C-alpha cells in the first residue's frame, strides 16, 4: 500500500516537472516596456481622401482613450479635412454614415500637418535626426523601454507608400529607418499597422527584431473603403480600420484582449482583402500579449514615504546679477504714423 503511495507521489512530481518544462516562463511572456508611444500618419491629401483622415483620427481617438498621453502621440495629417471648404459639416470629421462619432472631437493635437507631412520628416522623426530647433512635442523621444505603435494609411503600391501627391517612401527606406531606431535602442517593441493597397509589401523588407506587423491587404490586393456618407459625399472610412475601430471601442484600459484577437479582427468576408501578418521578427506569442501593451499606456507609480526632514530652511546664495539696482527705463509712445521718417517733397 505504502509502495503504491510512493509511486503515486513520484509520478505526480514527474508530471509537475514536465509541465513546468514545457510552459514558457511567465517573465519571458511579459513585456518589460516602461512607456508607450504612437506614431499615426495619414499620407494623402485632397477632399476625396477624407476616409484616410477619418482612419487615422479613429486610431488616435482609441489610443488616447486607452491612456497614451498626447505628448507621446505623434499625429501626422497631411490635409485638414475639418476646415476643407467642401466639408458640409465644418470642424467635424465623422467615421460612419450616421455621424455618431466626431473623431475630430474637441481635443486633437496635430503635430505635423499639411505639407509638413513628408517622407523626409517622417524618416527624421523615426530616426531622431530632426533639426536642432524642433520642439519636443514634434520629436519621438523614445528609449530602450518604449513600445511604439506605428499606424500608416494612405495610397500605396507594391513596395511603396505615397506621401502627399509628390513623393513616396519605399519599403527599403522604411526598413532602414527602423533598423536605425533599433541600433540606437529607440524601441523595445514595435507594432506596425498599415492600411493601404498592397499594404503587406511595406513590411516585407523589415529586418530589425521585435516588430509585429500587420497590413490590411496582401500584395496584389486592393484595400477597400467601407461606406459612403451621402451627406458628406465621400467615402467615410476604410474597411480594415472600420473593423479595427469596432474592436477597439470594446477595449478598456484593463481588459484582457490579446494581440492575436486584434490580428484576426477583419476576416476576408468583411474586409474583402486578406489581412497580412508578419510575426517572425516578434519574439513573444501574440496570443499571450495583451492589446494594452501597444494601445494602452504604462506609467509606474511609486508612493513616496520618506520625505527629507529638513531642519533649517535653506537659503540659496543669490547670484550677484540679481542684486544690481535697476535703472528705470524711459518709455514713450511713438507717433502712430512715422511721418517724421518721410521726407516731404513739398
Amino acid at each position, binding site marked *: 500500500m505504502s509502495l503504491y503511495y510512493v509511486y503515486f507521489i513520484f509520478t505526480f512530481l514527474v508530471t509537475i516537472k514536465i509541465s513546468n518544462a514545457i510552459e514558457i516562463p511567465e517573465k519571458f511572456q511579459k513585456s518589460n516596456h516602461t512607456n508607450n508611444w504612437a506614431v499615426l500618419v495619414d499620407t494623402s491629401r485632397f477632399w476625396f481622401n477624407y476616409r484616410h483622415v477619418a482612419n487615422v483620427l479613429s486610431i488616435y481617438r482609441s489610443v488616447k482613450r486607452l491612456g497614451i*498621453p498626447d505628448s507621446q502621440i505623434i499625429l501626422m495629417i497631411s490635409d485638414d479635412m475639418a476646415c476643407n471648404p467642401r466639408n458640409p459639416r465644418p470642424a467635424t470629421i465623422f467615421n460612419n454614415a450616421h455621424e455618431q462619432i466626431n473623431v475630430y472631437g474637441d481635443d486633437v493635437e496635430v503635430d505635423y500637418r499639411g505639407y509638413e507631412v513628408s517622407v523626409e520628416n517622417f524618416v527624421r522623426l523615426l530616426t531622431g535626426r530632426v533639426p536642432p530647433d524642433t520642439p519636443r512635442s514634434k520629436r519621438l523621444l523614445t528609449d530602450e523601454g518604449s513600445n511604439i505603435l506605428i499606424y500608416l494609411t494612405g495610397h500605396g503600391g507594391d513596395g511603396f507608400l505615397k506621401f502627399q501627391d509628390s513623393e513616396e517612401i519605399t519599403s527599403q527606406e522604411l526598413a532602414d529607418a527602423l533598423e536605425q531606431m533599433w541600433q540606437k535602442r529607440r524601441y523595445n517593441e514595435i507594432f506596425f499597422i498599415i492600411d493601404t493597397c498592397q499594404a503587406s509589401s511595406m513590411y516585407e523588407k523589415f529586418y530589425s527584431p521585435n516588430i509585429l506587423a500587420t497590413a490590411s491587404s496582401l500584395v496584389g490586393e486592393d484595400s477597400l473603403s467601407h461606406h459612403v456618407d451621402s451627406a458628406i459625399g465621400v467615402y467615410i472610412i476604410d474597411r480594415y480600420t472600420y473593423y479595427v475601430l469596432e474592436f477597439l471601442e470594446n477595449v478598456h484600459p484593463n481588459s484582457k484582449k490579446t494581440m492575436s484577437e486584434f490580428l484576426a479582427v477583419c476576416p476576408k468576408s468583411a474586409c474583402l482583402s486578406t489581412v497580412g501578418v508578419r510575426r517572425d521578427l516578434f519574439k513573444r506569442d501574440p496570443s499571450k500579449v495583451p492589446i494594452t501593451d501597444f494601445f494602452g499606456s504604462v506609467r509606474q507609480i*511609486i*508612493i513616496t514615504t520618506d520625505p527629507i526632514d529638513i531642519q533649517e530652511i535653506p537659503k540659496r546664495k543669490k547670484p550677484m546679477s540679481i542684486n544690481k539696482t535697476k535703472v528705470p527705463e524711459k518709455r514713450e509712445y511713438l507717433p502712430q504714423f512715422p511721418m517724421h521718417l518721410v521726407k516731404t517733397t513739398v
Partner: protein
Amino acid sequence: MSKHDTKSETEEANRMWASASFVGVLIIIGLPLWWKTTEVYRVALPYDKINAFETDSHYISTELTVLANDDETAQEVARQIEKAFQESDVIKLKITKKIIPNKLQHLLDSVADEQEALEDVGAAFNIKKHNTFYVVQRKPLYQDVWVGTERVAFFRDIKACSTIVKVLEKWIYQPSVLIGARSEIADAARQVRFPSGPGYHVVLSVVHPRPQELKVNFNARDAIEDYIGSFVDELTELHNFTLKSQWLHLLDFDFEATEVPGGRVAGAERLPLLLTRLEERAATHVSERPTLNLALYVVPCRLAPLALQRYDKEIPPPVQAFMSPKWGGVVFGNPTPEECEKQVYTPPVNLIMGTFLSQLRKLLGITDKEAQAGARLEALRRAAPRAWERDALLRLRALQQLASAETSLRSLAKLLGEISNIVINDEVGASINLAVESIHRATEHMEKADLLEAHRYSQRAFLAAETAFMEPSLLALLYFPDDQKYAIYIPLFLPIMFPVVLSLKNLLLWFRGKPVHKEKTD
C-alpha cells in the same frame, strides 16, 4: 594596290580613331568621373578604434584611506575590504593604511558627538577631495559603523570588519548599480532615473483646482529657489539646471475617491491619468531640454484629506505623495478642516519641499540606502546631498555616458556598413573623432581616479556621439537610393554605351593590325 584601297584604308583609320575617341571619352574619362561624382561622401572614420571599444572593461579607480588606532586593526580592515572588492571589475580601490595621529585619536575618543568628530577628521585630513573616502576608527561608538554626510565612515573596532565591507558595498560604492550603468540593458535603477543629459528643467507647478473656494499661501518661486536651488547647486558638475515655477488653476480631476474612515482614498488606477492631465496643462514640452516635473496638488476641501492608499494598521506617512520614473513627482497638499473653514490654506513648506527633494534625488540617480545590521546612516536633514553620494553620482554618470557613447559610435559604424546611402560629412566626422578622443581621455582619467575630469570628458564624449548619430545631414541622400540611381542612368547611358561597347571588338582587331572587314569579292 589601287587608289581605291588606300582611300578606304584612310577612311577606315579615321573611323577607328573616331570610335577610339568615343571609347576614350566615355569609358576612360566618363566612367571614373561618373563613379567619383556619384560616390557617397564619407569622411574616413576611426573604425579600428571604434571596433576596439570594450565597454565591459571600463572601471573607475577610487581612493580609500583606512585610519585606525593601531597597526593590526588597520591591516585587518584593509585586508577585508580589499578581499571584498577584489573581484569587482567595475571599481578598483586604492587602499592606504594609516595610524591615527595621537592628537586626533585623543580627540576622537573624547568627543561625544559624531558631527564634532567629523569636523576633527576634516581638520586633519582633506575630506573635501572628490573620489576619496576615509574609514576611521572611533572607540566610543554605539554601533559598529556610522556614516554621515561627509566622506568619512567611523567604525568601532576590529570586529566591525564585515559591517564596514557591507556598508561600502551597499551604500558608498554600489558596484551593482555601476554595472547596471555600464551595461546595455536598463537595470531597475536606470528605469527610475532620468537619462543622462547636459541639463534639465525643473518645473514646480502648484495645481489649484478650485481657486474660488480657497486661498493658498505658498510662494512657489522662493520655495523652488531656496530648496531645489540649494540642492541643484551641489550638482553643478553633473548637469545644468533651470528652475521654473508656475500656478495651474482650475485643473479638475476625478480621483474616483472612495470614502474610508477619516478621509478619502484615491483610486489607484487613476493616478497615472493624473500625470497625463497635468502634462496637458503644464506645457513643459515647449523647452528642448527634458523636464523634471514637480507638482503640488492642492486637494479641494470637499475631498480633503485625500490618501493614496488605505492605512488600516500601519501609520500613514506624514505626507501623501507619489513619483513616476523619468517623469517627476506629485505631492498632495491636504488642507485641514479648520483651514477649509477659514478658506485659507498654508501648506507646510518644509515638509512638501522635503518630499520633492526626496523624489528628485531618486529621479537624478541617488539610490535608496537599505538598512544594514549594525550600521547607522545619519538621516539627511538638509537639502544638499551627502558628499559621498555626489561622488557616487559622478561615477555612475561617467560610466553610463561612456557606455552610451561607445554604443552609439559602434552602431553608427555598423549602420554605415549596412546602409550604403548614408552621408558622413566633415562635421559628423569631427564629432565622431572628438567622441573617440574624449572616450580615451575619460578612460585614462577614470583609471587615474581623477573623477571630475573623467566625468567631464565622458559627458563630452556622450554629447559628441549623440550629435554625430542624430546629425540631420546623415539623411542627405534619402531620396537617392541605389535602385533609383539605376532607374535614371540606364535609360540615359545605355543607348550610347551599346554602339561604343560593340565597336570595341573591331577597334581591338584594328589595333592589332588585322583587317577589320573581309575584302568583298565580287
